[in-house]
């Protein structure tokens, strides 16, 4: 196998691992916060339903976290196995957040074990809730540290390259690179948003499938509210991300927006197709790209013509970007109408078709997460470390990457089937009605 093939298969394997891992990682970052909110509401309102909500979410969460942990271990190792040259270089500058991530993960793992096995151990439930805080903090900080590494790949700083040698290394400066604030905020907000919409989707599905229990209605309303808040946050952060890109990675923004020539008062190209370098059937919003990039309708936006041909990312990232933004907008509108509808007592939000839309919202949000990461990664091409190292120079020289691709594809298939089967069985066997009745009996037994 020539090295071109090694590069190709290394890219495919990394893409596969990340695309699979990100599903479980997103849930793993977001759900602890949801559990925390539900348990806190339950304690505050003395409402059994919210407590049970937290309890059932926890059970499901453990399954997803297990897959998240093992696939996270896989990508952690694959970074060195598939991109040894990159890790050798990057290890010198950006090893600190990677190292700190293992501590965050350690912290989370310890307290998750404790939280899971102390549900009825404490008289005071608030004590038990306290044990969840390190889980949620650890999960979110894992995301923060890993995203910092990804931000560094987009906007490397904190070192000087003199004759191919790294000098003046400053690990802190490398961590707080220009891409970091928007990227970290965006990853966190969308993880919370997606987790909320996935849980809302499950609630809506139960309601559609005949259970009319108030438990599901409470769950649905709560998660739609949380989803709305974080989808608005994600939109605001998205605006800042646009300004970051215009300043530091103009080629990524230009490729995503099909902005070919540098000029002032740039319009935003929505949708459309590219036919022989010509944009067709697109929606153009005048001045909108200049506003997105610089908050000024007349500002100059750098176009693709300023970059050498071999340093421009593939133009299909436009579709990824548009897909992500469209889903984000759609979910904001869907949750806004729902929340407003509950307050204003609109009846159509309780119809079957609206609930089906909410059911669809969960998987759709996950699609947006995938599109967003593909956009982030493909949009950085051809660089692995922007301006410093190209992807083709970073990959392993080993000839067995294609076999490893098959091996890992098999693994992910097994894990996907296993986790789906287990999760469905877990909740189908033990319905909410059943569990509420059981707990009632348990309590009566204690009083007698």
């Amino acid at each position, binding site marked *: 196998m020539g090295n071109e093939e090694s590069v190709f298969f290394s890219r495919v394997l990394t893409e596969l691992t990340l695309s699979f891992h990100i599903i479980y990682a997103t849930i793993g970052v977001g759900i602890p916060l949801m559990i925390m909110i539900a348990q806190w509401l339950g304690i505050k309102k003395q409402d059994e339903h919210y407590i049970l909500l937290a309890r059932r979410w*926890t059970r499901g969460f*453990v*399954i997803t*976290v*297990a*897959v998240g*942990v*093992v*696939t*996270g*271990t*896989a990508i952690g*190792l*694959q970074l*060195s*196995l598939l991109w*040894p040259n990159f*890790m050798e270089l990057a*290890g*010198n*500058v950006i*090893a*600190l957040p*990677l*190292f700190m*991530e*293992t*501590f965050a*993960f*350690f912290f989370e*793992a*310890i307290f998750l074990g*404790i*939280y*899971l*096995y*102390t*549900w*009825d*151990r404490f008289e005071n439930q608030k004590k038990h809730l306290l044990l969840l805080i*390190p889980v949620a903090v650890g999960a979110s900080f894992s995301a923060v540290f890993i995203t910092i590494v990804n931000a560094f790949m987009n906007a490397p700083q904190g070192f000087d390259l003199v004759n191919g040698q*790294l000098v003046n*290394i*400053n*690990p*802190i400066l490398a961590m707080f690179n220009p891409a970091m604030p928007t990227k970290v905020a965006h990853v966190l907000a969308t993880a919370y948003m997606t987790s909320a919409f996935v849980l809302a989707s499950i609630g809506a599905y139960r309601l559609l499938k005949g259970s009319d229990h108030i438990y599901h209605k409470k769950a649905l309303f709560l998660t739609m509210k949380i989803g709305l808040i974080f989808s608005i946050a994600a939109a605001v952060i998205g605006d800042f991300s646009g300004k970051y890109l215009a300043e530091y990675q103009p080629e990524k923004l230009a490729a995503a927006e099909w902005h070919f020539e540098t000029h002032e008062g740039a319009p935003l190209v929505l949708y459309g197709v590219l036919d022989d370098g010509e944009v067709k059937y697109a929606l153009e919003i005048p001045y909108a790209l200049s506003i997105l990039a610089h908050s000024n309708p007349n500002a100059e936006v750098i176009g693709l013509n300023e970059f050498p041909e071999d340093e421009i990312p593939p133009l299909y990232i436009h579709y990824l970007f548009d897909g992500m933004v469209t889903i984000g907008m759609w979910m904001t509108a869907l949750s806004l109408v729902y929340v407003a509808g509950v307050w204003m007592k609109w009846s159509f939000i309780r119809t079957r078709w609206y609930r089906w839309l909410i059911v669809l919202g969960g998987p759709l949000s996950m699609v947006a997460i995938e599109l967003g990461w593909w956009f982030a990664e493909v949009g950085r091409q051809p660089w692995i470390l922007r301006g410093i190292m190209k992807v083709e120079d970073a990959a392993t020289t*080993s000839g*067995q*990457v294609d076999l*490893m691709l098959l*091996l*890992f594809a098999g*693994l992910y298939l*097994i*894990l996907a089937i*296993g*986790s789906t*089967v*287990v999760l469905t069985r*877990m909740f189908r066997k033990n319905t909410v009605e059943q569990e509420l009745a059981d707990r009632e009996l348990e309590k009566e037994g204690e009083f007698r």
Partner: protein
Amino acid sequence: MTLEIIGISVLWLFLFGYVIVASIDFGAGFFNAYSLFRGKQHILTGIIQRYLSPVWEVTNVFLVFFFVGIVGFFPKTAYYYGTILLVPASIGVVLLAIRGAYYAFTTYGGLEHKRYTYLYGLTGLFIPASLSIVLTISEGGFVEETASGVELDYWALFTSPLTWSIVVLSLAAVLYISAVFLTWYANKAQDEPATELLRKYALIWSVPAIVTATGIIVELKGHNPEHYSRLVDLWWLFAISFILFVGTVYLIGKRKAYGVAFGLLTGQFFIAFFAYGISHYPYLLYPFLSIYDSFTNEAMAVALIIAFIAGLGLLLPSLYLLLRLFLFNKDYVQGKRNDHA
């Protein structure tokens, strides 16, 4: 003490932690599967499940900590080990992934089948075997550096008696460490039949563990004489380790002080593991990579050490809490309460 030495000591310490906690985990899975096979599952399953359930995820983190840390402190290892370990490390991580995920599926998800118990037991043997190969490779003689990069000579590796001795040692050590720990744990749980069975396993596996360990030292004489002579210089450390081994076996044999026995065992492995590590110095991969020529820059090293100290300040109390709530909680150990979500 130089930064290089601090770095490698920290990593070696965490690898030692992984060897102990993972051995307990791997061995427990194997004993569980074996007792199912022999129709004696009722004796061991309760004890093993109770120990493993809250801690399985923590075990994994020790390993992640080690491989992230080594790339941090010694970035050149990413290039050398990253390139040559693609296949063995991938196989190891796939097995770990299946094992970890299916543990969660069965324990928390109610997926019950004999098949998974056997799967869990067998991966507990294959994983240490595949991971221990890294130690063999580090001795040198299996890696070639050419113009196009570094390559692993699989044929030489798999036909070397050293490889297979280290594999056998890893298996024997896993089962021995696990059996001694679980004997103590079962005894704390006042579970008479389980204690007796595990005690028997501990005594059986002590023999191959010590025999293969000695055998490997002899084999190194031919394979890597430089390493061998450094090992011999440290004979007194190995002597102390051996005395601790005798102490453990004596206590287990006399049915006395199982907790002390496990303490002695930890000491035995700690001393042997560090004596091996010290004699390996300064090479990470003989003869290509030493801790000096692969070391990161000073700024990063200092940052990593500060992060490590801060992290440890957070971790140690948390680990203590975990142990206090489960390992040292009488009601929990004896199975009187579960409190699972």
